[in-house]
């Protein structure tokens, strides 16, 4: 999905805006700040999370960054392609570098997320 149509958090996660199950990742801006991502500590499928919970860690040689649940829900899939090629998060942050799929408990919760334009204002883009 085009990055302009995704929803964003102030901690630099993105989430797809519609569907029963939504892909979640980190933004182009966030991956750029982190540098070469060499490891993603993916969570267990089936884990139930509250909005704002730490769901996984992405690590570059110089930094480890927590990724937070953009909404409350259940982790229903993780991107296993990252286990052999974590650099997908750098190369395709809004596409092939997605991290988890989440089934939101309450679709209305995403109303508090930012649009692309709002997110651009946040990062000074």
């Amino acid at each position, binding site marked *: 999905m085009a990055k302009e149509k995704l929803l964003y958090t102030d901690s630099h996660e993105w989430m797809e805006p519609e569907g029963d199950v939504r892909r979640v990742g980190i933004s182009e801006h966030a991956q750029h700040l982190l*540098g*070469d991502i*060499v*490891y993603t*500590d993916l969570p267990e499928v089936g884990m139930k999370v509250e909005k704002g919970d730490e769901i996984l*860690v992405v*690590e*570059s*040689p*110089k930094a*480890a960054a927590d990724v937070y649940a953009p909404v409350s829900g259940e982790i229903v899939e993780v991107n296993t392609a990252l286990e052999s090629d*974590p*650099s997908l998060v750098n190369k395709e942050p809004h596409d092939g570098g997605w991290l988890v799929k989440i089934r939101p408990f309450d679709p209305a919760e995403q109303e508090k997320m930012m649009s692309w334009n709002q997110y651009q204002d946040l990062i000074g883009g």
Partner: protein
Amino acid sequence: MPVSYAGQLIEHQATRQQVGIFDVSHMGQVVVAGNASLEFLQNSFPSDFSTLKPGSSKYTFLLNDRGGVVDDLIVTALPDGKFFLVVNAANLSRDLHRLGELAARFPTVSIENHSEKWAMIAVQGPKAMDVLDKVFPANQVTWGNTPPFTLQDMMYEGSCCQISRTGYTGEHGAEVLCPPSLAPRIWKTLVAEGCVPSGLAARDSLRLEAGYPLHGNDLSEDITPVEAGLSWAISWNKTEAYPGREILEAQKKDGPPRRRIALVSQTRKPFRKGEVVTHQGREVGVVTSGGYSPGRERGIALALVDGAEASHDEYTILSGSRSLECSRSRLPFVPTGLKPA
């Protein structure tokens, strides 16, 4: 020196496979001069310089009275009887202070800080020597034929420069010392020859893969060279009583209280300085340098563990919220140009 230019991994691989360049102008340079220079060095450092030929270099340590490492450095004998020291930037003022203390009983010896006189560009990788021969053509010298740990003067555009056959990556190469005003032009020339500008992050992952210590991590005033696995750099048979000698000798004889080990993970997760090392549930040590090895695609670490716990094959590192199994590695962690498999 920026953390990276085009990306750490690209820069790291460029040095392992082709040639990378590093602006290490921050490094400090100190000249030891005076008739008693050799005697001063012999009584101050654990290495033997009495047989060091002019133009040859040695890796050594500036020690405190406890045998701890104030700095690790490279000492080169110059043709005019002086000695040229290249030291870590962060330690320069401590080094000058310590050298001054040690030189107090050698009144003819002077310690001169030349750090402002030299910029320094490291050219490293399998193609480094070819590039140097092309960029710095010199009468009767093929840089590729000069041995490691030698230093020679050369002229570049009318200015006196030096080529030191040293580096911090495990690859063949040199460090080019030049007047700061010339450095931007040399840098651009090297880039035009295909050298890949590389930053601090790649410098760290290259040196860690090569198993080289970083002062402030793997060496400090509270860690001796024997503990750090660097006994090879100590000249045990020399006669002079340098500071810390008795402590180093006792550690060599009885075994040091702690030992440096090298560990490789089963996952890619980079290890971090300060993470705890355990064996069968017992806390046995701490990671002094950790990172990600692009060559092995695994987390790697240098750690300092209790002397009595240093001979196991398997350890566990408490990394973030995880306990990660790891096994001992030989050094270097990966085959390098200077130490192929």
